[in-house]
């Protein structure tokens, strides 16, 4: 086994490091800690952040890529050879689904194919029959298996919750449990745990049944839709977070310097963002992606495998999205910096002879944090939705990459079939909807607490 680090993997893990550092900063400063406490006092914020963490968990699971060692036949050679293909931990988890590829469409929980095929039987007659699926248990053990899966789900989630409570409140474990059940804890932990348990139970139910059924059906070439939906989580979340991560330094540096230094610096930066923002977003992205495609076709040596190719394309797409989306934040930050730099405490700092960069670091950036945070969470849901549209237009992620946009794009024409093939679209939309809804609710709460204009 060998660990492989794709470009986007590296970015994801660096993001995790940034988040951890940030969490440490939050915990250190009592003031910021209090703000976050207020944010999480709302049970909606608590529930939606649990959902977001759940999606993030699958993203991380899908961001550890391995190359499995090939079975060494005679143990003669000392060097271990690796498979050419990379798999992530999520792939390993769903390995049975990857291998169990059916012939064509099948409905969720179906035991036979969706379309009838003509078969010649022993007597030489031709008949239209629905062929049974290859990898589906033919016995009707659905309810039994479901019950078993639900029981396992309840046990596992309950254990995890109890462990978490114990980890938080080691001394007064029983009282803490009582408080949470009665809903009297300082933060709405009850909602969080209920959401968490629901998610875990649903996941375990889907996962355990996926061994004996195609829970969400199969697509045109027989691929399992459940697996595709889970694989798409990484693409969606990555586009949502990494784009903002990439554009953030640019927006902050340019916005702050435009607001603080003024003069020609301000003029140049204003010109830059007015120009960029006057180009219609989709067209600029399309032009960028088209150029990138030609460039990648001209440099086939940049990547070894198709996975690396699609990964590189995802990275470029994220960079292009970042280039097109920093302008609005930059404009906001410039205005706010202008306002802050006129305030007394900045003047006082200047009078004390504090250096410009110290002023930026100590006085200006901390006061911009709420704008940055609001725009990060606001942009997230928009970007997740944009991915689907871009893939439809043909300038999204690589067609070989699993993403909700690609799922929708491929399944779009199947609605015209009679009877309809609805499950690919349905799964993609549901997975997307839950993520975007959670993000929207969370960003609402953050805006409500952090935005000073909303304190009425």
């Amino acid at each position, binding site marked *: 086994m060998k660990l492989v680090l794709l470009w986007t993997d590296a970015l994801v893990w660096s993001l995790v490091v940034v988040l951890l550092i940030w969490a440490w900063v939050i915990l250190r400063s009592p003031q910021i800690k209090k703000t976050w406490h207020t944010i999480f006092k709302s049970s909606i914020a608590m529930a939606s952040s649990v959902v977001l963490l759940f999606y993030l968990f699958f993203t991380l699971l899908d961001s550890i890529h391995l190359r499995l060692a090939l079975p060494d036949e005679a143990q003669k050679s000392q060097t271990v050879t690796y498979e050419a293909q990379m798999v992530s931990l999520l792939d390993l988890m769903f390995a049975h689904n990857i291998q169990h590829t059916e012939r064509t469409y099948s409905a969720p929980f179906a035991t036979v194919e969706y379309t009838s095929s003509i078969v010649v039987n022993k007597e030489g007659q031709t008949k239209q029959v629905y062929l049974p699926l290859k990898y589906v248990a033919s016995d009707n053990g659905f309810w039994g298996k479901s019950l078993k899966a639900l029981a396992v789900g309840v046990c596992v989630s309950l254990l995890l919750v109890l462990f978490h409570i114990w980890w938080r409140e080691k001394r007064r474990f029983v009282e803490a449990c009582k408080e949470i059940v009665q809903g009297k804890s300082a933060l709405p932990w009850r909602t969080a745990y209920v959401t968490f348990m629901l998610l875990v139970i649903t996941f375990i139910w889907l996962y355990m049944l996926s061994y004996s059924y195609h829970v969400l059906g199969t697509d045109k070439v027989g691929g399992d839709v459940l697996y595709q939906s889970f694989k798409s989580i990484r693409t969606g979340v990555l586009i949502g977070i990494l784009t903002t991560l990439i554009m953030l330094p640019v927006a902050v540096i340019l916005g702050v310097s435009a607001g603080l230094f003024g003069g020609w610096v301000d003029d140049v930066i204003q*010109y*830059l963002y*007015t*120009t*960029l*923002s*006057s*180009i*219609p977003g*989709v*067209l*600029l992205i*399309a*032009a*960028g992606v*088209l*150029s990138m*495609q*030609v*460039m990648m076709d*001209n440099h086939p040596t940049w990547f070894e495998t198709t996975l690396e190719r699609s990964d590189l394309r995802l990275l470029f797409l994220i960079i292009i999205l970042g280039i097109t989306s920093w302008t609005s934040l930059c404009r906001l930050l410039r205005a706010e910096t202008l306002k802050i730099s006129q305030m007394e405490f900045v003047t006082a700092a200047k009078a004390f002879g504090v250096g410009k960069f110290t002023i930026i670091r100590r006085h200006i950036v901390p006061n911009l944090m709420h704008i940055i945070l609001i725009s990060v969470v606001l942009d997230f*849901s928009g970007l997740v*939705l944009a991915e*689907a*549209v871009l893939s*439809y*237009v*043909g*300038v999204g992620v690589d067609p070989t990459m699993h993403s*909700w946009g690609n799922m*929708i794009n491929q399944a*779009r024409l199947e*609605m*015209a079939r009679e009877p*309809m093939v609805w499950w690919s*679209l349905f799964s993609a*939309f549901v997975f*997307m*909807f839950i993520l*975007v*809804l959670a993000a*929207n*609710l969370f960003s*609402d709460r953050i805006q409500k607490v952090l935005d000073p*204009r909303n304190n*009425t």
Partner: protein
Amino acid sequence: MLAYIIKRILYAIPILIGVNLITFMLFFMVNSPDDMARAQLGAKQVTPELIQSWKEERGYDKPLFINSKEEGLSKVTHTLFVQESLKLFSFDFGFSDSNRDIGADIKVRMIPSLSIALPTFIIALITNISLALLLVLFRGSLLDTSMMVVAVMIMSISGLFYIIAGQVLFSKIWHWVPISGYESGWDGVKFILLPIFIGVFAGIGSGVRWYRSIFLEQINQDYVRTARAKGLSEIKVLFGHVLRNGMLPILTGVVVIIPSLFMGSLIMESFFGIPGLGSYTIDAINSQDFAIVKAMVFLGSVLYIVGLILTDISYTLFDPRVKL
């Protein structure tokens, strides 16, 4: 006023040059004139001479930014960049890869785009504002909170879902309207009903939330309290004071997109088979026809800048405090 408009138009020129530079660089970074010639001349026996003559014919034989062969000012002007930009500035978009006149295409396709985008825009504006006013009237009530939850949900569903679900429901199952297509004149109304409805519905979530927040910001102002103290009914306060004062922030957000309505909606038009500018752009993207993409980028930026200027002008018309 006039002086201000002229100043703004002059200020738009460097921005458009910048837009041009960006698209030009994106285009020629990956696509040398030699490649273009080869693609245009087809798979026939392409000799270097043929390429050379094709390039000379179209003026593509000049260097990109600096012509070292020339003297003085023409060092800069006799280049591909200046020559192509001048063409765009005179709205001469040239020919697409399939040898069609882009300018003529745009003129023809503008009408279908507008016939969807304009009604969608107007109906959406009216529904969103009236719904928002209704919610503000009943603010804090169960209706308000539940509608806000619904609004967040509508916002969180991908726009593609509304289109696909709408087509399946209204066209495939109920057969109310044709699934896609376009006709000019009154016969075409049945084709544009569904796209307009979907366009309005998909935008209701974010729209109502936005207008509601604008009105709520107004409702805590002193003048509203005064109006109530005078004994005005809540409805009169809303329509006479809150709506009128809320128009100003609404104007900033709304006027700027009016010119861009010409560009049409990419997704809507391609799903419903409407031969407008949006589907034109999508087709161009899919066939990697950069000449069309470039023309649309330029057109889009011009319309956006026009929108910004219109916003400023409308401000002076509606708010007597603002003087240009």
